[in-house]
Structure formats: structure tokens, C-alpha cells
């Protein structure tokens, strides 16, 4: 039982990071119908921006405890801002020239952008793994045989907070309504005077900022980062978005948490070697039996 609870706690914390990244996939897919393969790399870049920001703000590995919560928040915000700019640049330079091209072209471009960012990261940050600064001092809490760290609680809390903020933004603000309009019908939204290019750009910015937040949380949790880490985590987050129903924000959140828990349960009860495989098994099962995802709606194809 304690194994179960322990894996559940860990799974929810990993899952909430997946959920944050999945939001970016789901928002972009919702507006453009594009799988933004480069999103995992934006997550990775956000993580590295956080690392450099922490050192820039005077982080000292020997006196990690003296790093103030204020600075830690600043690290998070800087990473989010930096990633937002990267996301907007990607959209402007790689995807916008292809708007209206056949569906496969943007998909292949997205793979290209993902490879490009990976390799730029290898050149810029070196291929060696780096240790993420512990900008929050870890405290362990024992609770009924389950170890919970303040970091895991922090990860969960920040993710939920950001997801609620996004939900509010999309449902209650003018720009959020414009986003939903675009995702419902792009040409019609344009005719109604929605500045589509600007809103799509903003969608990328928000999605990327959330991915960067996920990156910082991931750094806090796993402490090790490398230029190629975005690939697998990005894929898992995308699968989370598909599981929840792509284009659906709540679905992405639920999908992320489910994937995280499923992964750690597999690691705990079957074998950690199949930890990554279970995610793909979930993907295949969901696409074969419920391609619209848990919360998605079926869109009938018209001839």
C-alpha cells in the first residue's frame, strides 16, 4: 500500500509537469491543427534559461539555502518570458510561411525545427548533462510511510495554479475567446475581425511559457538536464494531450496526470525498463479505441 501511495505521489508530481507541457500542444493543435514537435525543445530551452538565470541572479551552489524565494520566482518568470519569445519566433519563422500548405509540410517542418533546436542546444550548452541549481531547499516530510518533499508539493501547486489561470484566460478574456473562435473556425474568425496572426502568435507564447514553467519544475525535481531531454518528455506530453482529447485544456491536464501516474506505477510494479513503453501503449490503445481522447468530441468528416 505504501508503494502504491508513494508511486501515486511521485506520479502526480511528474504528471503535473507533463500536463503543463501538454497544454502547449493542445493549444497549438487547437488553433492550427499542427503537432508542434518543437514544443519539447521549448521546454528544454526554458529549463536552460532558468539555469542561467539562477546563476545570473547570484545563485551559489555552496550557499544554496540563501537563494531567496523572490529570486526563485524571478527565475521562473525569466524562463517563461524567454521561452515565450522562442515560441513566437518559431511560429513566425517556420510555421507562418507554411500556413495553408498541405498538412504534411508543417509537420515535417516541425520535426526539422525540433532537430534544429536540439542541435543548437548541444552547441550552445554542450551535450554534457548539467545539474539544475536547487533554488528551493528540499525538505522531506514522512507521512504514513510515504515520503513527500516540499518540492513535489510545490510542483503540483504551481501546475494547478497555472492551469487554473489558463482556464480563466481562455474562458473569460477577450483574447481567450478569440483563441476559441480561431480553433472553431479560422476563416470565419478572420471574417469577424479577429486578428488571427496576432492571436496565434500569442497562443505560441503562452504555450511556450507554460512549457518553460514545466521545465523549471522538472529541473527542481530531477536536477539533471541535457539538450536532448525535450524529445522524450515532449512526446509524452503530446500523448497526454491526445489522451485527454487534443484541443481540450482540461483534457490535457487530466491526461498529463494519468500518464504520470501510469508511468510510475509501471516503474514500481512491473519494471522501470518499461516505464517509457507504457506511455506509447496508452497512446496506441487510446488512438485505436477512442481517437478523440477522453474528453474530446468527435468531429464528423465531411466529404
Amino acid at each position, binding site marked *: 500500500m505504501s508503494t502504491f501511495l508513494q508511486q501515486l505521489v511521485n506520479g502526480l508530481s511528474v504528471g503535473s509537469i507533463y500536463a503543463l507541457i501538454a497544454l502547449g500542444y493542445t493549444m497549438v493543435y487547437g488553433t492550427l491543427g499542427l503537432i508542434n514537435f518543437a514544443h519539447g525543445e521549448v521546454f528544454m530551452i526554458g529549463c536552460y534559461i532558468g539555469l542561467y538565470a539562477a546563476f545570473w541572479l547570484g545563485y551559489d551552489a555552496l550557499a544554496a539555502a540563501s537563494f531567496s524565494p523572490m529570486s526563485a520566482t524571478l527565475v521562473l518568470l525569466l524562463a517563461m518570458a524567454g521561452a515565450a519569445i522562442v515560441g513566437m519566433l518559431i511560429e513566425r519563422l517556420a510555421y507562418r*510561411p507554411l500556413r495553408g500548405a498541405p498538412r504534411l509540410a508543417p509537420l*515535417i517542418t516541425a520535426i526539422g525545427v525540433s532537430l*534544429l533546436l536540439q542541435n543548437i542546444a548541444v552547441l550552445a550548452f554542450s551535450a554534457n548533462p548539467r545539474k539544475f541549481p536547487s533554488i528551493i531547499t528540499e525538505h522531506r516530510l514522512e507521512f504514513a510511510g510515504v515520503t513527500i518533499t516540499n518540492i513535489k508539493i510545490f510542483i503540483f501547486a504551481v501546475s494547478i495554479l497555472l492551469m487554473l489561470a489558463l482556464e480563466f484566460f481562455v474562458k473569460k478574456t477577450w483574447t481567450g475567446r478569440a483563441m476559441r473562435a480561431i480553433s472553431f473556425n479560422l476563416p470565419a474568425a478572420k471574417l469577424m475581425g479577429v486578428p488571427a496572426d496576432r492571436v496565434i502568435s500569442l497562443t505560441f507564447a503562452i504555450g511556450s511559457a507554460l512549457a518553460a514553467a514545466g521545465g523549471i519544475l522538472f529541473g527542481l525535481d530531477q536536477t539533471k538536464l541535457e539538450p536532448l531531454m525535450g524529445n522524450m518528455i515532449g512526446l509524452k506530453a503530446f500523448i497526454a494531450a*491526445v489522451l485527454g482529447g487534443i484541443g481540450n485544456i482540461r483534457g490535457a491536464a487530466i491526461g498529463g496526470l494519468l500518464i504520470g501516474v501510469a508511468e510510475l506505477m509501471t516503474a514500481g510494479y512491473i519494471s522501470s*525498463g518499461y516505464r517509457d513503453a507504457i506511455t506509447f501503449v496508452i497512446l496506441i490503445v487510446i*488512438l485505436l479505441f477512442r481517437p478523440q481522447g477522453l474528453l474530446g468530441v468527435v468531429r464528423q468528416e465531411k466529404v
Partner: protein
Amino acid sequence: MVWTYRTAVSIALIALLFGINWALDQYVIDYIVRIIMQCGINAILAVGLNLINGTTGQFSLGHAGFMAVGAYATAFAVIHLESWLGFNASNIPAPWMQGLLLSVGLLFGALFAGLAGLLVGAPSLRLRGDYLAIVTLGFAEIIRLIFTNTEALGGATGYSGGRPLGLPVYTNFFWVFLWAIFLITLIGNFTFSSYGRALRAIREDEIATEALGINTTRMKVLASVISAAAVGVAGGLFAHLMGTIRPDDFKMDRSVAMIVMILVGGLGSVSGAIIGAIFVGVTLEAMRDIQQYRLLAYSLLLIGLMIARPQGLLGSRELRLPAFLRRKRGGAA
């Protein structure tokens, strides 16, 4: 009459390959021969992948998985055939026997890769476009993780048949190009048969094709099986060229490299795929000294190609022999 003509051509071809093989052995350094062989293997990969991604328009991102299945099955078969026939380090098979062993192994590779193509294709080809890409990618990852976690096949460190020197290196120019010509002819003929026309019809409009009474699912699965089997053969040749295979040889980059090949040449063109395969094989080697920029150059090429010339070099057209070299065939083009 036709048969004698074809037999003559085949024999001439085999003799030619044999001659080139001998000449390469004598006069050309191994390094160059290796690049040429790599180009041949690439050509099989590209033509195989092109059948499903280009001709049928069903975008797979997971052919590295089929290549892995082919590589492991071939290596496994060759190793076991050898020990069954009593060959070992002190009793090395004669060169012709090596090629024969390799070819039997490749048949196993093709069989298992084709089977994998059936198992993956039958459920996933119901999906379209980017969903299909993601599912095939998922299957490829699962295949890789299975090999990584199977200790009997060497696990993460790779399979070398339990031999200290690794897998026997049986792949040479002759066998690479014999198989390449065989498979390219086979797939080429398939592409330009009525089946190929049905596949192209599926690419253009699946619903309309279905309405014309073509069983689109069956056609797509058939294309997937043939494509996977061809890629599996390339995997087997690769295994016995490299001498060892690791699950990490068959990551997503491998699938992307294959996609670059068919995109450069032109999606849906058999000759384009071959050109792309040679292009990738040669540039890969040319950029060996600046290895860290290699993938960077690839990704820029991919993005640039999609924005500037998404149809690739040839589009879906074919390069053909000049008219005076072509043999007249009664009506059929």
C-alpha cells in the same frame, strides 16, 4: 521469349556486379567501398519508405522500428544458421557461403519486418496524417524498448550473437547491390502496376478511392507490409556491415534520416528516393569532420526544403532512361 531476355539481363547484371565487386576489392580503398555500400542500403531504405510515405501518402515516422526488427532477425538467423551448420571461428564459411548465409538471414529479416509491418499497419492505418505519424513513432519506440529490455538479444548494449568479435561482416558490394536492385525493381514494378495506381489514388483522395470499390485498408496494409519488409532487408544488411547492432541505432533520428532522403528526392518518386538516398549517404560522410554541425545542417535543409520546395527535387515525377535505351514494350508504360 520474354523469359530468355530477362534471364540474359539478370545474368549480365550479376556478372557486372561481380566484376565491379572484384574491381572495388582490388583498386578502391575500403573507406570508399563502405560509403558506396551505405548508399545502396540507403537506397533500399528510401525506396521502401517511399512506397508508404510517398506513393500511398500515409506518413510513417516509425520505419526505424522495422529496420531494427529486420536487423535483429537477420543477425539472429545468421548466427543460429552458422552454429547449426557447424561453422565457427576455426571453420569460417567460404565467401559464396557467407553470401548465401546472409541472404537466407535477410529472408528471415524481411519476413519478420513484414510481419511487424502487418501488426503495426493493420490497426494504425485507420488513422490519418499526423495521428498516424505519432502512432508509428510510438510503435517504433515500443519496438526499441522491447529490444532494450530483452537480455537474450543483448539488451541495451546491443546484439553481437554472443561473439567477442561481433556479428560476422558478410555484407559486401555484390550482395548489397543485388538485393538493392532486386527490391527496387520489385517495388518499382509494384508502384507502376494497378496496385500502385490504387495506392496513388488513396493518396489523392481516400474516400473517393473507397467509393470506386477499392478496399483501401487492405491496400494500405499491403503497402505497409512490403515497405516494412524492404526496410527490414536494409536493416539486415546494415547489421552485417556494422558488425554490431544496438537498440539506440534505431532511434527516431534514423526514421528522420530516411524521411530526409525521400523528401530531398521528391515524395512519391522511386528514382527521386534513390537520388535522395545517395545524397544523404554522401553528405553524411562529407560532413564527418564537422560532425557536430551535421544534424544542424540536416534540420536546416528540412525546414528550408519545406518552405521553398516542399515537393522535393523531382516531385512525384520519375527519372527515366533516355528513349533510345528503353526497350519497347507492347503498350504498357
